């Protein structure tokens, strides 16, 4: 299965930049995610790959072939749509066979391939039904079967799970990933749901306002966000604003940050970008914080005041305040602090991320 390559892609709608991608390579056999808020340009990017949207500038390659000017019907890419886009007047069988019939394959071959795809997606018993007789989950499977039955060069997914209920969505994620690994088809997956992208994709590109903010594995994206946008978009993130006073540990990348209200804290930073004296924001997530004892003399231990406490069953969710900074913090439910109570917490310096503003 070939790679997909986008080069110098620009697409504008009026003055709004829908996509501005100098270079993006999706590797052979990879499950690649395009993650971003709605209107970020992720769907535009996918449609440019599919050929459904023409870029104003730039080239699109599959393998070594330049497909920029190839119409979508000749690209042989499988696509799964948000609404699944099943043809309402055709049975499940005819929906899956639609592309095969257009290619004028012999009837026997069509039957064989539809059977193969239907078995793979466990919809063999639904072949004679019409789309409106199927549940959402079943329709989604038919849409995937219809896309893979053509042995496409790549699979494109446009938020295919957003119309499913939450429980089913989680189950389907794993199935999709399994299927993709089995078929080894290069796949691109568009979603605005971080958990979905993390569960399914090998690598993810975070997109905002048409531009790629960061590309990396889910771990890299979560642990080492490169921009404020990525840090904010992924997980529950709060920020402490300040200035780098000192570089404390060159090899581990630890810096000392003086916050705007005088709070002094230690944080990890990418030293290629953050220098002494840089204005930074320090990203803090609930899992970067742990409880500490009052007597602790360690670095980054602060007195905090509980402002809000929410019981969520498996965890307690707190909003706490350190100086002027409000942070989110979670504990197992056996700890129960009341609003107004004072506690001591430690911010883990190797997890905190100081990002240049």
């Amino acid at each position, binding site marked *: 299965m070939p790679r997909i390559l986008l080069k110098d892609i620009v697409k504008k709608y009026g003055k709004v930049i829908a996509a501005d991608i100098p270079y993006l390579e999706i590797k052979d056999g990879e499950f690649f995610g395009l993650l971003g808020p709605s209107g970020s340009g992720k769907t535009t990017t996918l449609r440019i790959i599919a050929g459904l949207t*023409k*870029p*104003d*500038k730039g080239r699109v390659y599959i393998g070594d072939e330049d497909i920029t*000017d190839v119409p979508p019907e000749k690209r042989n890419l499988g696509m799964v749509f948000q609404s699944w886009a099943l043809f309402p007047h055709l049975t499940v069988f005819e929906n899956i066979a639609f592309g095969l019939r257009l290619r004028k394959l012999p009837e026997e071959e069509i039957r064989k391939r539809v059977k193969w795809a239907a078995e793979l997606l466990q919809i063999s018993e639904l072949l004679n039904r019409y789309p409106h007789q199927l549940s959402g989950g079943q329709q989604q499977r038919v849409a995937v079967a219809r896309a893979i039955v053509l042995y496409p060069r790549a699979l494109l997914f446009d938020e295919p799970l957003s119309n499913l209920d939450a429980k089913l969505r989680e189950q389907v994620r794993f199935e999709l990933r399994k299927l993709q690994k089995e078929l080894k088809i290069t796949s691109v997956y568009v979603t605005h749901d971080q958990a979905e992208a993390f569960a399914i994709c090998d690598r993810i590109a975070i997109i905002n306002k048409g531009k790629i903010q960061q590309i990396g594995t889910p771990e890299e994206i979560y642990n080492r966000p490169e921009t404020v946008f990525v840090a904010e978009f992924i997980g529950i993130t709060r920020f402490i604003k300040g200035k780098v006073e000192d570089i404390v540990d060159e090899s581990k990348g630890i810096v000392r940050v003086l916050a705007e209200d005088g709070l002094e804290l230690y944080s990890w930073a990418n030293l290629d970008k953050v220098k002494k004296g840089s204005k930074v924001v320090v990203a803090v997530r609930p899992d970067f914080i742990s409880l500490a004892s009052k007597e602790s003399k360690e670095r980054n231990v602060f007195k905090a005041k509980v402002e809000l406490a929410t019981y969520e069953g498996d965890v307690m969710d707190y909003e706490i305040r350190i100086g002027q900074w409000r942070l989110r913090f979670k504990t197992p439910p056996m700890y129960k602090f009341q609003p107004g109570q004072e506690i001591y917490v430690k911010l883990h310096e190797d997890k905190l991320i100081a990002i240049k503003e």
Partner: protein
Amino acid sequence: MYGERRQRIWDLAVIGIVLVYILLPMVVLVEYAFAQKWYAYQLFPSEWGFKWFSWVFKHADTRMAFFYSYTLAPLVMLATLGLSIPAGYVLGTRRNKLSIFTENLVNMNMALPVIVIGIGLLPLYTRLGLLGNYWALIPAHMIGAIPYTLRSVTAAFMQVPRDLEEAARVLGATRLQVIRKVYIPMTWRGILAGGIFAFSWSLNEFILTLLLGAPAVKTLPIAIYEYVGGYYLTPQPAAALSLFILIPSIVIALFFEKYLQVSLGLGGG
């Protein structure tokens, strides 16, 4: 990029052809109306002016046609509304079997050719001595207008939430107050649209006026027909006359689209 621009050119070509097709007859109509001198061997008129418009007004026949057309239209509008508002109130607020039946009945009338109704009415009008009677043309014009007007009025009443009337009544409003405070503010657009529709319909009505009114009562469409129907070879006065019903029709329709957000179609048989 390149493909995009080619697409735009295609769009312009396709839509341009359709536009020319739609507008060409109208442009030529205007040309005829303003052509003061036009010799048979010339492609275009040699002199432009308002001669035919004043010609139209000089004739007693056409002057009367103006009078008939533009007095009948508001009368038809009022009469149609008088019939449609109570009926539309019932059809719009009570969705029972009677309402559905009535709607289907009215819709069925729409499918009947006007000429057939016209020849059926002819003996009735003859017997009652109403042929060529100005007032008797009002119900004739209403036949075609009622289905559309009634539909518009019914739709307006349907939009009034049922519980709003009940709430107002519970709060102690009288029937009259309910009508003034609840129904009129919420339905006037639909009623106005329906009324104006009846107005335009009457302005355009042709075949029933021809059968039941002419020659005693000639409206503008009849006057136009008399100029062209008899293979009259100077179409200029007919063109000038046509503008007097075409332009109001267009203005009314634009008004509809813009302010009432209703689009309509009518032709008048």
